[in-house]
């Protein structure tokens, strides 16, 4: 379905701190995302999941080390990080609501200099046919599910090596969420695209992930393989509704 245009790359985070003003939100996180794998960050509201992704991309005040592949990107600016191969789909999707679906995809390829951008648009239109139908429509007029697909497709237009997804299921109907996660799993299997997903919907996330971290009050409380976490009584009680 998809040509293998993605190189695999891993992420290593050491002693990551982040704060908003005087409030320290992350208090020294250490974690890794295996190259070609899918890792998930679980946690309650306010635990620091979104801040973790923002901190990795240098979108807030942080200290600590972030290593993408073998390159230290702790001090790299948000826009430059895209050029290093890591692309972030923010919470709430961050679609350019006044731009057409097509322009959203084209601006996703902003950092590219090759001439295969149109081919990639066609590729993602094939995989997300709803976006093809609405290519001329303003992105703001799309449904929540379509906007989430658009946000993901826009990120893929940059040909990332590592994709950060912040609560992709937020505000979507259960059927659409399942469909979306199936697509993520397919994408990962067929292309080897590394993914780090922040998710409240722990069941779905752990089903497709290899590895998981549980964040509580800005610290890693628990981590392990997805299977191990799924069977962990504490995780079951807190996040899986068992």
């Amino acid at each position, binding site marked *: 379905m998809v040509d293998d245009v993605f190189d695999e790359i891993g992420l290593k985070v050491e002693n990551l701190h982040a704060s908003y003003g005087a409030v320290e939100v992350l208090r020294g996180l250490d974690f890794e995302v295996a190259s070609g794998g899918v890792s998930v960050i679980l946690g309650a509201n306010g635990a620091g999941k979104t801040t973790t992704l923002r901190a990795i991309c240098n979108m807030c005040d942080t200290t600590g080390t972030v290593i993408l592949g073998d390159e230290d990107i702790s001090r790299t600016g*948000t826009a430059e990080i895209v050029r290093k191969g890591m692309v972030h789909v923010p919470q709430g999707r961050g*679609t350019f609501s006044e*731009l057409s679906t097509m*322009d959203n995809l084209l*601006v996703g390829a*902003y950092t590219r200099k090759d001439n295969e951008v149109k081919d990639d648009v066609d590729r993602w239109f094939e995989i997300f046919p709803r976006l093809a139908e609405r290519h001329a429509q303003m992105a703001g007029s799309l449904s929540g599910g379509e906007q989430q697909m658009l946000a993901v497709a*826009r990120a893929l237009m940059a040909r990332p090596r590592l994709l950060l997804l912040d609560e992709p299921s937020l505000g979507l109907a259960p059927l659409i969420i399942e469909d979306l996660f199936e697509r993520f799993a397919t994408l990962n299997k067929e292309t080897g695209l590394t993914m780090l997903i922040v998710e409240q919907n722990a069941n779905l996330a752990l089903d497709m992930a290899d590895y998981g971290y549980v964040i509580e009050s800005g610290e890693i409380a628990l981590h392990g393989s997805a299977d191990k976490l799924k069977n962990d009584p504490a995780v079951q009680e807190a996040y899986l509704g068992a």
Partner: protein
Amino acid sequence: MNWNFDILPDFIFNGLSLGAIYGTVALALVLIFKATTLINFATGELAMLGAFLVYVLHMEQGLWLWLSMLIAMGLSAGLGVLIERSLTRPFDPSDHLPVVLITLGLFLIINAVAGDIWNYQVRILSNPFGKFPSWVPSVGGDRFIIVFGSRLKYQSLGIWFTLAVALVVLGLLLNKTKVGLAFRAVSCNVESARLVGVHTGRTLGFGWAIASAFGTLGAVLVAPQLGGVNPNMMATIIIYALAGAALGGLDSLGGAVLGGILVGLIQAVAVTWGGVVVFGQLYMSILQLAAAFLVILIVLLFRPSGLFGTRRVERV
């Protein structure tokens, strides 16, 4: 009351050509507002400076007027980039007060410097549409054509044509270039723009550049109507442009042009022609300026987002 409809087309043509100029300057305001939600109070003075550049290049150095205009627009664009880079980028974009104060400071500095160099007398600047090649038809030596029994000046046609060309160029820049796409993205959502790798500062610089060029174009077009250039030439023009931008919607480029034209029409028809109807003779009415403020007031009261602007929706 004498409903003097015979002369109405005159006023409509006049309003449309003044309005086109207001629209040009309003575009300069809106281009920056759309991207930064910031009113650049120095817009008018930057435009005035551009007009003086044309004055120096054309009247003093003897360059061809249209070439002088292109060079001045290019220099204004460069100055716009410089201002964005040195005076606005170092400040937190979410905190508007410092940058607004900076643009106010720029307003005063540019005005004072221009006053020092050129003093405050009106200096004649050639009308871009003052001369026509011999193939242009003329009526009794005057340059106009008769439309609806009224005189439509070639000057008005020239202003409309120039604005149309400038709008086409702007449309191509915004819709067909990569930096234009990035600019639209930044205008829509700064954080998301960063997340697709857009360097937001440089991209805003592009906005400042075209805004400054448009301002200069507007100032050169309006100069003949003011008798020439002088450091205070934009003082009232910028208020009409602001009224136009507010009327059209501060974040709508098309709205800025239409709003500017509407303000021109309101001035010429409602105020000036209306004055003739009510008082029976032509007053060069100071009520024109009051009309602009009235437009701003009414828009802010009843439709703060303007005719074509995005309505602010707060989700809690």
